[in-house]
């Protein structure tokens, strides 16, 4: 908090703006795999205290360890009677920042379960507030190591955005939350925020944006060149049946905007497309025999479901649902 206050002062933020432009960094403390910079516009004292606490804890983690991630931006654009009306989400990997998706959210007391997206992945987290005030979050998905300079720049961008919102509020552009601040303006602000991120962020993003499914298809080509006994245990290379099935899976993954984390040759002879998110694991394994098997599992609680796939689109949808929804459903 001290750092952010200093940052705010050096940027000559008017005191009355600082009063409700509270900065924070969150990390998903349990896994250490998720970091977020949040700027709240709220006058709720209780919330501020929570933010301060989270800030202190997260600072230790962020500044003393490496952070990996993709950037994303989420704006809370208003709540009505405990139901979030909509969330704006954007990232350089989605492309069109002026599109907004309405995502149903579920309240658990003062905690809000939020689903947002970075690239094609979905992550869920809990916010520490439910006040109905406007807020903006810039998050980091665990992907790449960030330099300290990058972290600082993320903070600066987020602060700039918070100031912009604050100014709009002071000018009565925002009267009842961000709902009165046009979606389009919000998207433009978000875009500026993301596009002004340092090059080590954007360059990696551009690579992904160039088409993960093309890369996935390229990976299949690479695996098609394997020869018998590629693992020294007599494994068969993937044959045309497995490769064609895997291509079909990739096509459906593209439709569902679900990117596999790994594409591997299977020791049984075939192709495995693997998905990971914290303690959740999913896989579609396409065999040389023409059979396809799908798996979803949660490692901490031992949940595991394995089924023979009769419909690839249905299997893809089921895996996506598994990754999007809360653990309690499974």
């Amino acid at each position: 908090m001290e750092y952010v206050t200093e940052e705010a002062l050096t940027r000559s933020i008017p005191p009355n703006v600082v009063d409700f432009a509270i900065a924070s960094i969150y990390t998903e403390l349990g896994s250490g795999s998720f970091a977020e910079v949040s700027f709240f516009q709220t006058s709720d004292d209780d919330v501020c205290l929570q933010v301060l606490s989270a800030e202190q804890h997260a600072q230790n983690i962020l500044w003393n360890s490496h952070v990996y991630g993709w950037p994303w931006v989420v704006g809370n654009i208003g709540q009505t009677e405990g139901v979030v009306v909509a969330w704006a989400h954007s990232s350089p990997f989605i492309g069109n920042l002026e599109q907004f998706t309405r995502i149903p959210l579920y309240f658990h007391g003062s905690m809000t379960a939020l689903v947002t997206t970075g690239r094609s992945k979905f992550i869920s987290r809990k916010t520490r507030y439910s006040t109905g005030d406007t807020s903006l979050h810039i998050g980091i998905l665990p992907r790449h190591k960030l330099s300290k300079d990058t972290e600082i720049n993320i903070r600066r961008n987020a602060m700039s955005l918070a100031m912009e919102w604050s100014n709009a509020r002071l000018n009565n552009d925002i009267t009842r939350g961000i709902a009165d601040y046009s979606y389009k303006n919000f998207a433009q602000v978000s875009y500026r925020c993301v596009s002004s991120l340092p090059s080590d962020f954007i360059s990696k993003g551009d690579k992904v944006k160039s088409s993960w499914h093309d890369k996935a298809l390229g990976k299949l080509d690479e695996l098609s060149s394997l020869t018998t006994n590629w693992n020294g245990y007599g494994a068969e290379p993937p044959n045309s049946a497995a490769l064609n099935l895997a291509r079909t899976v990739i096509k459906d993954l593209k439709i569902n905007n679900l990117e596999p984390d790994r594409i591997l040759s299977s020791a049984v002879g075939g192709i495995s497309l693997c998905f990971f998110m914290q303690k959740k694991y999913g896989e579609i394994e396409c065999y040389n025999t023409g059979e396809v098997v799908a798996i979803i599992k949660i490692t901490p609680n031992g949940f595991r479901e394995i089924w023979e796939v009769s419909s690839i689109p249905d299997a893809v949808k089921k895996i996506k649902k598994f990754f999007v929804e809360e653990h309690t459903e499974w």
Partner: protein
Amino acid sequence: MVIRSGDFGLKPDPNFSDDEKLYRRIKQDQIYDGNRVLGNALDDIQEKHSSCSFNRGKYSDPKDVLDSNYPEHNRVAALLAGNLPEPQPHPSDAKILYAFRLEHLPKDSNYSHSEAQVTKQGLTATKLGSADFRRQLREALADKMSVLDPSEHQ
């Protein structure tokens, strides 16, 4: 250090102590959650697919399972002989249990060679049926394995 068959001929040693480790080389991308093994790294565990091979820790070191012909397979996963998966009920008939067992099958070049096999009602299972059940067996075995730290096989 691995013991070649010349030391013992090809006579197998059927005794596996519970704390004996069995080793299998894997690739880095077959690892998740730090030290867990992906089920797709394992062979189908039935006779016609030659079961899932390991090196016995009693007759070899972890590093012996590594092979310079497969440089990408430079990690070693271990399975404790006393920690085999529980018998798995067949999906179509839960009364039929498929149990795991270890078989020492020395090779000319590798006395420590052994296999994890599946038995049905005490006999070697030759046909395990559906692909999802076969994967269930591989998954059960993979869940019992853990990847060694590289310092343990250098």
